[in-house]
């Protein structure tokens, strides 16, 4: 009844499966996170709006539609007016076009600030973590000092001090904002990278590389940096909303973007003056800001889960 079969053959399930690289694995898990996918889509739309903004905008952000304004009794046009989807401000400028310009500013702020953060934070953190000892002590005490300094105060001081100079006026005051936010923001990145490098330096695979005789330089390039990049990506993504928010705050309190350019923060600031009668002037920029912030946060949270090495290969 029973027939003899040859010696135990372990069916190798692995051979049948496609190769899963760490990147593909992370993408797969990111795709399963619905909020993160929505966030990613909105982020892409936002980027497209920023790049194509001027081309998409029905009006130039500084052009006043005085005719329509006059026809409306010199009051801001309400949303859904002919030619002005979201209405106009009190000067007759198209709100939708100004929002698109604001998107460009927000995205530029986000990108440039994060570049500044990366350029300072990563080398400082990596050097502190890798060399350790005195270098570490020195660099970290310096970051502590920067960290302890009140961000907003620093940015405002910088803004006030350099407002009249060439830097202050460059790009309608934008450059100064980028610098100010970046100069306070790199500290967290430096700490993160230092922690990553410290723990990776002690990891057994780095010890294995050392045992093989791999040079320090190659250990950093081949083993440490590729493994530290995940949390850095997450930090950058999650840092973007705070940079956007910081810009909006600065513009709202009047030291940020100078008129006639429009950032979401300065639009909200302008709008508050008409809030009682024309709430759309506050509501739309605030909505744009909120959606952008949430999207980056959802995407960042999703990336964090997707890149977590502890969860790799699961779910």
């Amino acid at each position, binding site marked *: 009844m029973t027939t003899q079969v040859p010696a135990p053959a372990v069916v*190798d399930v*692995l*051979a049948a*499966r496609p*190769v*899963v*690289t*760490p990147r593909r*694995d992370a993408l797969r898990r990111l795709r399963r996170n619905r909020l993160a996918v929505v966030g990613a889509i909105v982020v892409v739309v936002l980027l497209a709006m920023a790049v194509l903004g001027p081309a998409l905008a029905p009006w130039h952000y500084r052009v006043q539609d005085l005719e329509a304004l006059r026809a409306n009794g010199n009051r801001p046009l309400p949303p859904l007016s002919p030619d002005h989807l979201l209405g106009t401000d009190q000067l007759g400028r198209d709100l939708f076009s100004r929002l698109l310009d604001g998107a460009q500013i927000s995205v530029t702020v986000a990108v440039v600030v994060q570049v500044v953060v990366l350029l300072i934070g990563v080398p400082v953190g990596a050097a502190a973590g890798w060399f350790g000892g005195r270098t570490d*002590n020195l660099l970290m005490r310096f970051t502590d000092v920067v960290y302890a300094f009140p961000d907003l105060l620093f940015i405002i001081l910088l803004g006030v001090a350099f407002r009249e100079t060439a830097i202050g006026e460059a790009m309608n005051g934008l450059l100064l904002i980028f610098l100010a936010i970046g100069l306070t923001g790199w500290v967290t990145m430096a700490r993160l990278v230092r922690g990553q490098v410290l723990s990776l330096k002690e*990891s*057994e*695979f780095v*010890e*294995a*590389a*050392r*045992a*093989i*005789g*791999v*040079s320090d330089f*190659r250990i950093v390039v*081949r*083993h440490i940096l*590729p*493994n530290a990049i995940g949390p850095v990506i997450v930090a950058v993504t999650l840092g973007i909303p705070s940079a956007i928010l910081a810009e909006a705050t600065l513009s709202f309190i009047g030291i940020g973007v100078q008129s006639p350019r429009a950032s979401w923060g300065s639009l909200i600031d302008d709008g508050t003056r008409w809030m009682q009668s024309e709430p759309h002037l506050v509501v739309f920029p605030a909505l744009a800001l909120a959606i952008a912030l949430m999207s980056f946060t959802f995407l960042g949270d999703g990336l964090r889960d997707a890149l977590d*090495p502890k969860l*790799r*290969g699961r779910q």
Partner: protein
Amino acid sequence: MDPVTHPAGAAGPLVEADGLMVHFPILGGILQRRRGSVRAVDGVSLSIQRGETVGLVGESGCGKSTLGRAMIKLREPTGGSARFDGRDLARLSARELRRLRRRMQIIFQDPYGSLDPRMSVGDIVAEPIQTHRLASGRAKHERVRELLRLVGLDPVFAARYPHEFSGGQRQRIGVARALAVEPEFIVCDEPISALDVSIQGQVLNLLIDLRRELGLTYLFIAHDLAVVRHVSDRVGVMYLGRLVEIGASRRVYALPAHPDTRALLSAVPVADPAVERRRRRVILAGDVPSPANPPPGCRFHTRCWLYERLGRPENCRTVEPELRPVGADQRAACHYAEAALTSDVGVVRPADAAPRDAH
């Protein structure tokens, strides 16, 4: 011939530690001043002959892993010397040391932490080949395939990443990486203790087969005394940074001369209920003291059953015992090794052997 990468062919031991010490500083305060030190390895002398396997056992914190790493200079010794094939590792330049790494390798305990998660298996195994420029291009790939086959993995897995493998398979990848440079000496640091029971035997057999086929020399570190006996020609027992007993495996397991060895042996559970019921255990009191502040005299005396049995002799508290010969190819660091030898504590005999009372 390159004097670093080629064997001198001398008859001396392949690996040798002489009074080796590794102390880790304990830093404290805002200024990170040194407050004391953890004496992880505190003056150990040990030599390993070519082709020999020396086992190293002891409880956690006894310094066995640190000693293994210091012997191949993965940890910087703070005292004493480590020699490989007659050369003092401390005297080599960084470059020479990197080249010497071709001849000495290590296999780690944790099959998850010891492989770079962002590199494919092929790249992991190829890294040592590239580093020492042993082969390139097609020859390199062929060598990687050969190594994977050697450790019992299908070469088609070279394109895959570590997270796709089970613990036992990852451990095989780690073995392949260590073998890629054709080393003579391998430190096996708890190579099977993170694996499942049914997988442990597979990896242990693999290591034993490779030793025979490739003529390897092992320092085999493990806390499992039965596993160590199975692979080792000689075995050393460590306690709080010191070697307390060393000798031929056969001898140490049959006639342990140090109370710690006997205590360890008596604590190992045996998978036979009849043996377990009949065994006499010495239950050591308390835990291992901190290696930052080891007890004076014999470090083991605070937990020693023999010390209690002999009425707490004073020299155990005041004089640190030296490692001294207690039999053919056996040395122990105990003032009362002779008394330990005649006790029957800790020696495990098969269930069918008649219980013997040796007092």
